[in-house]
């Protein structure tokens, strides 16, 4: 009888160990390089005079995964997929960005995100996303050409509420689930880079060949209570798949990520 008790217990323990092992493997296989904390950056005063602490994030969007570091050497498993990546403070390409597309910001804080957009563009399949939505004032600051070498705007900064729906490179669209709390929704269209420069970038697999004058879009939004959000790109950029929403669009770490609001 004792043998049977041990045998049964042993089977249960082995079973749990197998499940734990496979679970650990699957969790590790998501290949998700951690969460980036946004950098604190003073305070922000809203139009109504209310003051919020402010944090900043700098993001770059590339036409392929060869840059940005977090996909590994040579762009990882899918070097030809478009990708977001963490950027330097002036749009620099960070070849060794260890972190991917998951971000964390504090609650009740002004979050300012600057996106340097290195990719070309086309027409959105839904011009709803050609509008700036959910940011402070419903606007974003836009620079058509930013010189990453001189670290200065190469064209004047304008305030925009929308861009032409046929000139969109990508979008940054942040949303969450309906769970009885404030629901953050931010969507900002990112203007495409002019074709010649992106063309050069796609040809050259080296940093020097890359477009040096991306578009620059800066926007600020105020976070509510703590919560789990996701963000993704709403410009269909998964080439060769149905509705162009497969491939890079359907894998975390490329055109989407988690966005955690947490103290």
């Amino acid at each position: 009888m004792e043998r049977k008790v041990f045998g049964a217990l042993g089977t249960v323990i082995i079973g749990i160990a197998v499940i734990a092992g496979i679970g650990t493997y699957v969790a590790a296989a998501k290949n998700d390089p951690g969460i980036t904390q946004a950098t604190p950056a003073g305070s922000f005063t809203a139009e109504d005079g209310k003051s919020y602490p402010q944090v900043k994030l700098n993001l770059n969007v590339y036409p392929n995964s060869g840059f940005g570091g977090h996909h590994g050497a040579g762009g990882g498993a899918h070097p030809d997929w478009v990708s977001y990546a963490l950027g330097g403070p002036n749009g620099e390409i960070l070849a060794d960005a260890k972190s991917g597309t998951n971000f964390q910001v504090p609650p009740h804080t002004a979050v300012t995100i600057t996106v340097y957009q290195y990719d070309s563009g086309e027409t959105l399949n839904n011009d709803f996303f050609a509008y700036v939505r959910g940011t402070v004032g419903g606007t974003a600051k836009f620079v058509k050409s930013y010189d990453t070498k001189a670290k200065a705007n190469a064209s004047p900064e304008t305030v925009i509420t929308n861009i032409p729906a046929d000139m969109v490179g990508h979008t940054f669209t942040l949303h969450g689930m309906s769970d009885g709390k404030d629901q953050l929704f931010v969507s900002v269209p990112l203007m495409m880079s002019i074709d010649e420069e992106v063309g050069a970038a796609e040809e050259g697999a080296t940093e020097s060949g890359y477009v040096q004058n991306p578009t620059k879009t800066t926007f600020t939004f105020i976070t509510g209570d703590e919560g789990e959000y996701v963000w993704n790109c709403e410009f269909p950029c998964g080439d060769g798949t149905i509705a162009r929403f497969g491939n890079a669009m359907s894998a975390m770490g490329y055109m989407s990520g988690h966005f955690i609001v947490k103290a």
Partner: protein
Amino acid sequence: MSDLRSPEQDYFKGKWWKRKDVKQVIVLWIVFTAMIGYFSSKFQVIAMGNPASETMENVINLITLFTWASSPVAGFVAALAIQALSQRRHHGDNPPPEAEHSISDSPRATATWLVISALLCLFALIVGLIALQKDDQALLDRNAIHVNVTGQQWAWNYDYPGSTGVRSNVLHLPVDQPVVFHVTSKDVKHSFWVVQMGVKIDANPGYVTQTAVTPNKIGTFDIRCAELCGLLHAYMQNKVIVESKADYEKWLASQPDTGHTTWTPEGAIE
């Protein structure tokens, strides 16, 4: 059909209703019916929470009604099963002695069972058809406002045709006002589910589907995608804000004028 047993055996012989086990079953039946009906409908009503439309109230009533209608059947099966369990049970490695009878059929019992289950089935069907008819009628309401719903991988957005091109990621609706949704998708199949209002319709790429509802409570409710649509399906949700007519008009006027709507299904705009 039996080759060996005498066919005249039946449960319904003499004063069968005076047998002890029959009496036990009847008592258990009444108790179980009441318990199953009561607890199941309580479970359902608690879980389904506060309805935000008459449609949802009807759904809750339908489910509770079906629960009560089927609880006598469930109660009867449970009563027979428990009564059987309370009989002499046999443990051990060898079979118990044979049962005291060899009844292999009871035409009366099976006929009664068949008639009752057919009647219950008919009842469910009629109740369902009446409710279905009501839902279909709502689509034709001439006083309804129309909202175009677009699902795309992993966000919903709403157009208000007839306005100045108002578009929103949060659905605003005036209370007590019928609304017809025209639902479509930009890519794969989604399902537009206004949870507390009890309506749902799939968003198919290339087609427009309709559903209608009249919200009857002011408040904030949930819209969730109910069809697996890829990577961020779990997050394809947003809110519906039901407000007074005045508040709704105010919100509509406060929205920026985009000058156009992207698509207008036939009949959506007068």
